[in-house]
């Protein structure tokens, strides 16, 4: 048989155990939330850096692409092609007799 005093003691102990548990749970919850919050922030920061790095890479690639386009465009300039054809390849403009006009029968008149 337990005495009344023993019962009260157990009840107090029980209550204080529950109180500590609740406190621990609250602290844990706060710490976890903080960790999640900070973790999220850190992740955003890291992703921000990654975005910046990728943006830079993209910019560099776009620049390279642009430079190559300009180079291709300037290499295809008619003045350069004509000079290359006439000076390096020895090509000449067709003379009168070099041109043959072929008229196909039934071809629509232009």
């Amino acid at each position, binding site marked *: 048989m337990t005495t009344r005093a023993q019962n009260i003691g157990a009840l107090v102990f029980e209550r204080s155990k529950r109180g500590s548990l609740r406190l621990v749970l609250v602290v844990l919850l706060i710490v976890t939330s903080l960790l999640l919050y900070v973790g999220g922030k850190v992740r955003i920061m890291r992703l921000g850096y990654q975005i910046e790095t990728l943006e830079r890479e993209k910019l560099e690639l776009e*620049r390279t692409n642009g430079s190559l386009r300009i180079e291709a465009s300037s290499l295809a*300039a008619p003045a350069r092609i004509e000079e290359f054809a006439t000076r390096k390849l020895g090509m000449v403009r067709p003379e009168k007799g070099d041109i043959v006009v072929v008229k196909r029968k039934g071809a629509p008149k232009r």
Partner: protein
Amino acid sequence: MGLAFALVIVRLLHLQVVERSRLTARAERQQEQVITLEPKRGTIFDRRGRELAVTLDVDSVYGVPSKVDNPRELATRLSRILREDPRMLERKLAGDKNFVWLSRKVDPSKAAKVKEFDSEEISLRSEMRRFYPKKALAGPLLGFTGVDNQGLEGIERAYDKLLRGASGWVLAEKDAKGRMVFPGGPGFQFKMPTPGNDLILTIDEVIQHISEKELDAVLLSSRAKGGVCIVMNPHTGEVLALSVRTNGAGRQAFNPNEPKRYKPAEWRNRAVTDAFEPGSIFKPILAAAALEERIVHPLERFDCRGGKIQLADRVIKDAGEHGVLTFSDVIAESSNVGTIKVALRLGKERFYKYVTAFGFGRKTGVDLPGEISGLLRDVRLWSGVTIGEVAIGQEIGVTPIQIAVAYSALANGGTMMTPYIVSEIVDREGKRGQKFIPRPLGRVISAETSAKVNTILQRVIEAGTGRNARLSGYTAAGKTGTAQKIDHKTGAYSKKEYVSSFAGFTPALSPKLVIVVMIDTPEGVIYGGSVAAPVFKAVAEQSLAYLQTPPDDVEGRMLLVAR
């Protein structure tokens, strides 16, 4: 102890409550930075989609003078890389500012060397730079942009608003090391820049090259001061090529990549900004007016013997000796006497009506900056000599583009067309924003008159002063001109300086190209038939071959094979 604690509390309250908003704003200013995002200027393409002007991201070099300990030493080192004046760099680096541009839009090789500095004093910032990959090709036509990408001349200026686009911005945060962080998420504030529109021109890069090359060749051989060559589609008003040389023989053509190297006169588009006395290339206008009014027949004979005609107090002479000429031959042989006789028969009122109807004395409306109206005196102010002078292309100032438009009307059956350079505006999503269509301004002469003038102008090339313009394989029609320039010192016609010109179209039977050539102050042989006509021939032959136009004149050694 208690007092100290109270002070701390008071200070804390002051900072957290009273000064809160000011300090928050200050912290934000330190941590945040608004970065302006430049829009990408639109690309300019030729009619077949070949790039004529493009924009590229490049680096600009800036300095932080407040962090520079030894401006002179740094300026000397930098000047070797940037090829800028070391004293200018030193001056810029000597202040206590936190930002100063040192060199804008530098070449990638220079930027790479500056990157090696890796210091807080000097840094790079990305900016847009305009490139003209075909270098001097169509330079005065395209124009150029300023250091802030604003169009300053040519098409770049005329279409600046459309090409430029709108700036954007982004609110970036700086971390403890000063590195830029883009926070993202719902609070991320930014506005993307709106890129400029692309332009598609009526210009054909190859025909442009042909006209420039031939113009350069004649400038070199004739040691002329400059020249203009316009190639136009007479049925639509599309300008296929517009070449301008204002810097004389031997000097490099205007390259819009380096506008600072040239004087303003060298990038001026004289095809629209300058008027010249056309001389005999104006005679077909009189011919068209007279034939339309039926006051003359192409075979009517005119006595041109004696080679001179009295007009009020002035005697106007022919360049050579002529006999009795048909009206066709008056134009073909370019007789001033015969032309003036017809003009007098037409009368000044009627002649003036046609001169204005052909677009002289007013702007053509071409989409280029700086166009002038030319010089045409009101008919009420014409003296007794003016009718004869205007008939032979004197006492009137015209721009080369006006001549191209007038000859287009002669070629296309009599309709005046508005010339244009931009055929399409393409928006940033690649959609065709606006397409320009040919704009007829109305009929000036009948198709019948146009055909008669065409025949007369073919005769100029077959048997008249324009024999040097005769093409291989194609028919052509045109007129030579040799006009004395006004001597600015005496105010009278110069005996040394001339403008040699040729205007015409080809193939004569179904005109595809109108070509106007104007050579300013050639030396030695000065006649339009000798100086300008060969340019017409060369440009026409090469352009028609490039356009794969079937030859319509197969005489000579050309072979026609039938299958």
